[in-house]
């Protein structure tokens, strides 16, 4: 079977075996082929980036991974097993958490409640217990609050925990969204353009958080990003997509010197 030993990154981190593997994924919407026969893997503990020009199919790829789209052809292998057709919420319960390109927070709730929703997959007290706020429901609430507070500390959003999300500025919303995803303690974290629309300072903060998450919790991260500098600095391996096809895969340095990638970004006719 495929190698499980992994590799060592440039900065000396040990990367483990294959956590998720996408085999020959094809995704069609009617006559449009959004993803065309793409295979790649995501290894335990690594930061994997998916890049490509607009409309390359990156977000579709992320939607396939998070179960929002079912691929037309091909299969998703997760923790060594082929994943059957699943509803998105079932995928989330298997330890896949994500953030969204356009922030998808629950605007009517406070930051704390938003992050607590990330723990819903870990909470299963009965309705009766919840109604009387006693027994398992209350214990669960306290336990999970404690875990959520750790995430809130980690992402430095303590001072806004009781603020309704609707009142927050964009950069903070992005951070709250990351907090919600992290609260689920996912095995794999999908970030859809975590730095879109941020200024340099916010990007630096976000990059630091992403590295810290990976470092401290050992979370595997798969991200889509347009800022090449950020991608090249953060990620261990990069997949490059263009027009639904994979045109490059490898370490940032390999990808940077790949002629197809350069052509795709500079717009050579093909």
């Amino acid at each position: 079977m495929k190698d499980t030993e992994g590799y060592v990154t440039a900065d000396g981190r040990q990367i483990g075996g294959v956590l998720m593997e996408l085999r020959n994924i094809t995704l069609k919407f009617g006559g449009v082929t959004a993803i065309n026969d793409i295979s790649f893997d995501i290894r335990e503990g690594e930061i994997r980036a998916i890049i490509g020009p607009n409309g390359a199919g990156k977000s579709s790829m992320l939607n396939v991974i998070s179960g929002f789209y079912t691929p037309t052809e091909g299969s998703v292998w997760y923790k060594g097993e082929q994943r059957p057709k699943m509803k998105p919420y079932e995928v989330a319960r298997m330890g896949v958490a994500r953030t969204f390109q356009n922030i998808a927070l629950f605007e009517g709730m406070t930051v704390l409640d938003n992050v607590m929703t990330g723990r819903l997959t870990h909470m299963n007290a009965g309705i009766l217990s919840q109604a009387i706020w006693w027994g398992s429901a209350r214990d669960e609430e306290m336990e999970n609050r404690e875990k959520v507070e750790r995430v809130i500390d980690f992402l430095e959003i303590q001072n806004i925990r009781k603020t309704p999300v609707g009142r927050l500025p964009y950069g903070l919303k992005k951070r709250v969204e990351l907090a919600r995803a992290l609260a689920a303690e996912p095995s794999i974290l999908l970030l859809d353009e975590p730095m879109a629309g941020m200024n340099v300072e916010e990007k630096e903060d976000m990059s630091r958080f992403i590295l810290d998450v990976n470092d401290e919790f050992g979370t595997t991260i798969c991200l889509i990003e347009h800022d090449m500098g950020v991608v090249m600095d953060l990620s261990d391996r990069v997949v490059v997509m263009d027009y639904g096809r994979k045109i490059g895969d490898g370490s940032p340095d390999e990808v940077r010197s790949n002629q197809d990638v350069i052509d795709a970004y500079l717009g050579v006719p093909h």
Partner: protein
Amino acid sequence: MLYRTAGQFKTSYKADQALFPVRQDAILLGVILAFAWVIFPFTASEFAFQTMLIPVLIYALAALGLNILTGYAGQLSLGTGAFMGVGAYACYKMVTLFPWMNPVVAILLSGFFSAGVGVAFGIPSLRIKGFYLAIATLAAQFFLTWLFEKWAWLYNYNASGAIQVPNIQMFGIYVTGPQADSIVQYFLVLGIVTVMTLLCINLTRGTLGRTWKATRDMDIAAELIGINLMTSKLTAFAISSYVVGVAGALYVFMWKGAAEPNVFYIQLSFQVLFIAIIGGLGSILGNFLGAILIVGLPVVLNLVPGALGIPISSAMVEHLNTMIIGALIVFFLIVEPHGLARLWALIREKLIIWPFPH
């Protein structure tokens, strides 16, 4: 000054997530409960019980049920009146089929019937949203009221087609029917409403409440973070319809004493919806404020001209009533679309920092 929260420190998450993290809220609620449980019952006249106290509680409970569905879970419903009817008819059938049954137990059980009907009519919500769902619940409204009229078994083949609440005793005291005292009925209603409100507060601030609110605010994101939308929506329909059904049973058994199918027509649905909207969607307190306004305003408008010695015909009062309530609804929706509950929240926020502006 009175509402200053400075100095109230929380040292545990338990204290922070208590029902009333701010001491003044608890005191205020204690005062309100004291009024409701002690002062009102022993000072109110028969007229006050029948026109204010009992209906306010029942309407508030119905609005609370609707609010769980519409305000918390974001599923618009126009079938509240019919779901109240289901509760009322179920309760009527139970006490007539099983005369030995405790009336309070019958009232609480009747909620389960409307919960079942609510879930059945909630199934379309898995596919449709917003206005389209409202139309689907409208179908429930018309179908159920039609059933109340046509299915004679429901009203025990009465010639009048109405349900008549029988006199039932509990511990030697009449609690329903024409022989029951208002004060007894008031205490029963108050007890049920108090307990159910407390349970609903707990549900809406816990796991289930967050599931509902997530479904309301952004259903796609909710599903992608692991919420099963089907369970989320159907539990909202079930619990909401349960509360509404109990309110319906109380409406007939503890207040009206008799009901024809036309009581549960769409006017009732709208009345409850107005209470929920004016009170504030997504708030528990709002249901009570809205009910006080909607129930209390006509009473006040009826009394004021007489008290001032202005000769106005009762028909005129009726017209004025409709106009003023209509105007008030428009006014409130413009000034504070989030309802009376938000108004109170803003006042409270100001009080906490008073006398400083921010």
